[in-house]
């Protein structure tokens, strides 16, 4: 099994989710994160002091899939999350050893 961890622009979450659903990936876990990278944060002013907010709001999408599914999923994400602008984000892939479904105790591929 692979875990695909993706950092995307918040505005692209909907499309990524729908894209993954369409290829049969029915589960994922999402969280709010802050990104630091080529895309720079911006400057805000408060009472005369300008200050830089270094971090940019991003969304992290984590999805665990069968090995076979992985490359398809990556393709979908690459397509759906892309705006072509700096800050579109990254996909990180790694294998995981096992998965369990808490409700049933099922293990491995059946669990996801």
């Amino acid at each position: 099994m692979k875990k695909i961890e993706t950092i995307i622009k918040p505005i692209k979450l909907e499309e990524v989710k729908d894209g993954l659903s369409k290829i049969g990936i029915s589960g994922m876990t999402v969280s709010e994160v802050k990104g630091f990278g080529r895309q720079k944060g911006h400057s805000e002013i408060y009472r005369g002091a300008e200050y830089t907010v270094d971090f940019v709001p991003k969304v992290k999408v984590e999805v665990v899939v069968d090995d076979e599914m992985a490359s398809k999923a990556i393709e979908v994400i690459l397509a759906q999350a892309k705006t072509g602008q700096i800050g579109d984000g990254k996909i990180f892939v790694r294998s995981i050893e096992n998965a369990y479904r808490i409700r049933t105790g099922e293990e491995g591929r059946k669990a996801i």
Partner: protein
Amino acid sequence: MKKMVRRILLLTGVLFMFPLVAWAADEAPTIASNADAIKAVQTHADYVWTLVAAALVFFMQAGFAMVEAGFTRAKNAVNIIMKNLMDFSMGSIFYWAIGFGLMFGATTTGWFGTSGFFLSDFTPGGDPWVLAFWMFQVVFAATAATIVSGAMAERTKFVAYLLYSAVLSALIYPIFGSWAWGGLFNGSGWLEGLGFIDFAGSTVVHSIGGWVALAGAIVLGPRIGKYTKDGKARAIPGHNLPLAALGVFILWLGWFGFNPGSTTAASKDIALIFVNTNIAAAAGAILAMITSWIKFKKPEISMSLNGALAGLVAITAPCATVTPLSSVIIGAIAGVLVVLAVLFFDRIKVDDPVGAISVHGVCGAWGTLAAGIFNIGGTSAKIIAVQLIGIGAAFIWAFTTGFILFKLIDATVGIRVSPEEEAEGLDYSEHGARAYPDFQIVSATSAVIGSGGMSKEVWPSILTAPEAH
């Protein structure tokens, strides 16, 4: 308290102060001096009541600010508040310099006044009633201005808004006001000449604001994401409903100045107006809740809050001239009407984030009509006709001038922020600020809502814009 008065006289070194009541002179009272003194005391009570009412109406600015901020997204809260603050601040200055003179100055045509600019009717030592009257009127002008703010929320350029706000306070509102209310001071307008009933401004204040808001919402177009590709309205939930509710309570309180204060006199009449105002608001809230319950299966909060305001707007014209029972009916109808109107404007793609057009425009018109129908002294085809003329005149005047104004602003400074700025939020793009820097804002769900996805048609430019995220 006499010491304080004396102090002023001494310190300023002049005796310009308004004549004190007779007994202060320690002469033996006479019947005539007593009669004068009584008038003076009544006048003092009139001043106190009118100005306390003005303070309550002023506080409605806070109510509008909270309702509008609460009903929109966190990323635009600073902008909302800046608009409300400047509405009132600029409104005060422009109404002082220009608006009041147009509205209440002497007129030969019946179309607008031409005297009393810069409060020139007041001279030190002269009768200060014009000051009390101005104070009460300026908070009305600012109310009309701020109504529009909500309908144009979350996408209007700040500088465009400031321009609009100045023109509304200086021209649009006062000129219509002179038609219906000019006679309350030095003016005399054609609408009041016909016998138009609008005691506290369902039409003069609320509908005018509402129809200008309609023009603004149309010229601006809907917020990005408000409609799906196939044209269905989507929810863009307000970010702070407790704050919005506080705003509604503040507005309700303010209306106890708005309506009964319009007597501008301490009299027994205010009791009926208080009761009618309160009971119409209550009926509006209940019926809006019931209507939302029937239509959506759940009692919906934002509609219920709008319902209370709908009742208040509707009773504003007839508050002095209907019975409490009529007020219940007027408020109840407004409560139903406002829900249907919100759904209607949503369907015809007029995006009004806070329901300002429905609450103030539609229910203002309804209340003005109701003032004719439920008139305690009886109604007639003529009374109804005059009311309809007033309603129609308000729509034509406000919508047309509003539309032209917004088109002009659009052609010059531009009326709408860029899609990127809108996506980012006006707080940052217009003010370089954030409303809630210590809180984790849910960027995911506030950027895209619902399961429909962000339509490419609705939001094309964002895809090729630099730095959009």
